[in-house]
């Protein structure tokens, strides 16, 4: 029988908090750590972003710290042993420790090695650096590693810290909004950058059905306090399918026809019944072109009747972390029976009639689609499903 891939542990580390349930509630309440930094980093223009504290960054690697914290929490959540030769580590990031360029080995391979050593992972770590879909691409990679039978457990860690390098780059592209971003809104003016780490432990071993994937061992991590339906049961999360498709159009701009996202959706949608889908968790960077492109892709894929949530208005664009962070909050939303609000969105400003959730909306369904796009014309789509009972 075809093995299945389960999420058996998860964690997030964000400027809004490090506890999934607490951060989930903050997102529901419309809170965010996004704010204006007159000078976040030496030499940068004012930037609206969601950042960890800026003090004392010169003397340490914030990137390593948040990766390690996210990884350790996810491993503890799963109760997994990552020191086994059957455990793989996949690190997902775009720029890693680039702020130390010229002072240290800033290759992502070096970052991954430090993380593996700190965690006691004995297999050679793998780095997926696929622009802004890196986190989702890491989950696709983790799933493949498990389905191949090479490993029993895969720890996928996605993280991004901001720096003068990244801020200057996005400013040079004129892609940043000087105020809080407004995904899919008519008045959107660009994206906000964000920092975060998020991790998932994947396994082919199915957790006991009575356990919530989000933590069977730690009852306070359940979403019961936030649940619209307190009697709702918790399930086991599975990655049903995940693919990557390229636009083959432009290295820094999305396809006008949403080609790659549409093709990615077409590839993953057959794995799930339509009535099982609760919502689509989209990329929604709040740039003019990205959000328009996604509306076209969703329309072409016949998904205009599903609620659409974007979380960049809450966390900013967390790049390498986004795929995992937004997936974990998507899982929490399904368990709570809602689609999360799209902070910053008021009036639809894209050409296709998609149902962007300005406020939290109740949903049915035990599955969702995660969609992301990035530089290099790359697009990723995954379907996650909660199964209940045995």
């Amino acid at each position: 029988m075809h093995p299945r891939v389960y999420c058996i542990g998860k964690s997030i580390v964000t400027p809004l908090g490090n506890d999934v349930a607490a951060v989930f509630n903050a997102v529901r309440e419309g809170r965010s750590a996004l704010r204006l930094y007159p000078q976040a980093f030496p030499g940068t223009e004012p930037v609206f972003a969601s950042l960890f504290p800026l003090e004392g960054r010169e003397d340490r690697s914030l990137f390593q710290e948040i990766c390690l914290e996210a990884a350790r929490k996810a491993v503890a959540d799963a109760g997994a042993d990552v020191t086994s030769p059957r455990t793989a580590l996949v690190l997902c990031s775009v720029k890693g420790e680039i702020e130390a360029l010229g002072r240290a080995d800033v290759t992502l391979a070096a970052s991954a090695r430090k993380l593996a050593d700190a965690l006691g992972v004995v297999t050679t770590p793998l780095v997926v650096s696929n622009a802004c879909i890196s986190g989702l691409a890491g989950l696709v990679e983790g799933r493949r590693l498990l389905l191949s039978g090479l490993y029993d457990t895969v720890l996928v860690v996605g993280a991004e810290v901001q720096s003068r390098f990244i801020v200057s780059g996005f400013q040079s592209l004129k892609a940043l909004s000087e105020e809080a971003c407004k995904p899919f809104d008519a008045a959107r003016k660009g994206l906000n950058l964000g920092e975060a780490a998020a991790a998932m432990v994947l396994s082919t071993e199915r957790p006991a059905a009575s356990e919530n994937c989000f933590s069977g061992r730690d009852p306070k991590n359940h979403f019961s306090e936030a649940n619209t339906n307190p009697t709702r049961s918790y399930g086991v999360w599975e990655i049903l399918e995940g693919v990557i498709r390229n636009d083959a159009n432009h290295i820094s701009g999305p396809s006008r026809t949403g080609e790659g996202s549409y093709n990615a959706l077409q590839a993953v949608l057959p794995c799930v019944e339509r009535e099982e889908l609760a919502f689509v968790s989209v990329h929604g960077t709040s740039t003019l072109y990205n959000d328009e492109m996604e509306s076209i892709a969703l329309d072409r894929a016949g998904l205009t009747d599903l609620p659409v949530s974007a979380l960049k208005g809450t966390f900013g664009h967390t790049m390498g972390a986004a795929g995992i962070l937004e997936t974990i909050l998507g899982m929490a939303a399904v368990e709570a029976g809602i689609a999360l609000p799209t902070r910053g969105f008021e009036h639809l400003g894209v050409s296709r009639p998609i149902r962007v959730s300005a406020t939290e909306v109740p949903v049915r369904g035990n599955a969702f689609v995660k969609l992301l796009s990035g530089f290099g014309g790359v697009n990723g789509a995954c379907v996650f499903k909660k199964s209940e009972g045995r």
Partner: protein
Amino acid sequence: MKTVQIPSGMDLTALYRQQMGDYPKFFKMDTASKLGVLLAEMLVQDEPDRFQPRQDRAVLVFSRSGSLADDTHFAASMEDFPSPAHFVYTLPNTVTGEIAIRNKYQGETSAFVLEAFDPGEVMNQIVLAFQDKVTRSVLALWIDAPSDEEWTAQGWLIDLEELLAPPQEHHCCHGGGHGGGCCGRHHHAESEEHHCCHHGEEGEEHHCCHHGEEGEEHHCHCHDNNKENE
């Protein structure tokens, strides 16, 4: 399986004129993307209908140093005026995008960073990429260009049919690694001695293009158009 290399320090503009010549976008690319587009060109230029959009070919790029050379260029520009032209190449996967655009490949594109050149891991990832049911062939490239002057650049093109073919005496995944299945035998009628993923001791006999000083007389086993290279 086809394989090609571009020796370190080779004149890439000359190679472009010889292999492509009709793609001025080439000149705006960083060194890693130039190497990637050229390796892809050398591997696929004889294919029929090559510019028809297709999703059935994945592009996987591996390196150790990612976009380090261009990172350094962009960082230098930050001191004066941050250059968007450099910034867009400061991602390890930009090269996959350039190859996709040139060849209209709308399938999977992925970029991986490894600690060192590891043909076993490259082969492992090629095998994994075929888990995507749409993927029928994989263009895999090792492109490590820590500077604009020095690099290692090697490309492989492998079809699913080769992977599924019953293994014969020639196996490709000598590199070891995780033992994720063998890619099967390769189809080089004219070079049976030619091992695919071997790099190092026994692999010396196989060179495509020029390889340094001593390589001038080597004919490429896998690409006829390289003849005028000599």
